[in-house]
């Protein structure tokens, strides 16, 4: 199976070839790992030593530097999955379903961490681990959707068919998430309103915003690193499966 003899029309389809992806993503792992480690070092230093205490919450405000990036990633990862679902259904991009499969558990973990850190933060400041308010509830529902998609991935034997069917589910979920969020907000609102991404710019002093943005960058890089590594693992796993199947066929032919 020679890759070089196949005519490659453009960079997009070159990007699509799993073998090519394995070749160029090899050089992505280490730079991403170093960038992730560096930005975590800077971000954590800021978060622990170079940011002020909150005048009401004291040191508890530092939970925010872990909580907000996880909450941001819980939604970004679903966005990545929705885009790869489009890639599967529209372009039949052979890497898109690999990306979807790789991202689902990462998204679930980031969402679970957002809920976990949120409840650790909520206990001393609101006096409760869990409150059925709008944003917490819709994050919980998002976690359930992630878990459903993971369960569906595990239920299929045929991974190619699974990729396309799960792409449909992912897109339906993507269309439905705003509806869920709206309905849950309608149902109950207690959480403080959004304060980072507002129309009038961030409503935070720079001393808190800088470490927050660095930490968000660090977590996003961590996601990118884990995503590339998981995609490589998945491609290799599929290749190993194919090889063992071929070996079994040859063994049966003898």
């Amino acid at each position, binding site marked *: 199976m020679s890759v070089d003899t196949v005519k490659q029309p453009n960079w997009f389809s070159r990007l699509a070839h799993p073998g090519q992806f394995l070749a160029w993503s090899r050089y992505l792992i280490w730079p991403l790992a170093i960038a992730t480690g560096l930005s975590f070092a800077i971000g954590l230093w800021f978060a622990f030593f170079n940011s002020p205490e909150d005048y009401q919450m004291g040191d508890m405000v530092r939970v925010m530097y872990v909580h907000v990036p996880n909450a941001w990633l819980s939604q970004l990862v679903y966005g990545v999955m929705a885009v790869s679902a489009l890639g599967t259904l529209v372009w039949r991009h052979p890497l898109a379903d690999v990306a979807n499969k790789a991202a689902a558990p990462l998204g679930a973990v980031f969402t679970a961490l957002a809920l976990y850190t949120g409840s650790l933060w909520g206990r001393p400041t609101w006096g409760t681990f869990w409150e059925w308010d709008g944003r917490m509830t819709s994050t919980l529902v998002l976690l359930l*959707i992630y878990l459903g998609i993971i369960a*569906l991935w595990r*239920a299929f034997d045929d991974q190619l068919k699974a990729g*396309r*069917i799960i792409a*449909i589910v992912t897109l*339906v979920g993507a269309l439905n998430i705003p*509806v*869920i969020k709206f309905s849950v907000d309608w*149902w109950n609102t207690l959480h403080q309103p959004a304060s980072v991404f507002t129309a009038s710019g961030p409503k935070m002093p720079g001393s808190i915003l800088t470490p927050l943005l660095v930490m968000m960058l660090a977590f996003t890089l961590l996601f990118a690193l884990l995503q590339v590594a998981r995609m490589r693992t998945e491609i290799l796993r599929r290749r190993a499966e194919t090889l063992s199947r071929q070996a079994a066929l040859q063994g049966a032919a003898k």
Partner: protein
Amino acid sequence: MSAFRALIGRDLKLAFRAGGEALTLVLFFVMVAVIVPFAIGPDRPQLTRLAPGIVWIAAFLSMLLGLDRLFRNDDEDGSLTLLRHAGLPLEAVVAAKVIAHWLVTALPLLLATPVLALLLSMSWAQWGQTVLALLIGTPALVSFGALGAAVTVGLRRGGLIAPVLILPLSIPVMIFGVGMLDPLAGSGATLFLIALSLVVTAFSPFAAALALRVAGE
């Protein structure tokens, strides 16, 4: 159009002549409501307060329980393959099956609600609003269910996965369905539920048909 009606008629005939699944579902629906007082106590004012929510939960569970029969039998005996190659577009086939499924699984539940109203000491006004909410909301539940059933039709262990997938997606239906009984926000919830139900019912045949095509390849 006649093929569309014939398909609905076929599914209704199958449902009534074999198995009696509709009756079993109604029985399950009533049973869920019967076990609730054992769990929370027979205090009548409390039951009255919780009754609409209990009816909705019972309806949710019954609809999820009935999901598997939507496409699985047709897939197993091969009629789904025939339907895929029939003159009727697969989207229309799904729509016909959704309508038949609603008639077989949702309508009997609505007819059984007076029993629940009696058992849970609902007021007549409460009962009327709950039936109206179920009438508007169950098409959305069936449509979400059709998607879940289509996505899992090729799976040997699909029975449990479809409900797990569908439940979080259909939370808005329950929120607005129960919200219709809110004296302040009720009219808004009614409109949202109608909008949601219409949109989901209109779109789900396309998504479900796409999933069935992929599954049948």
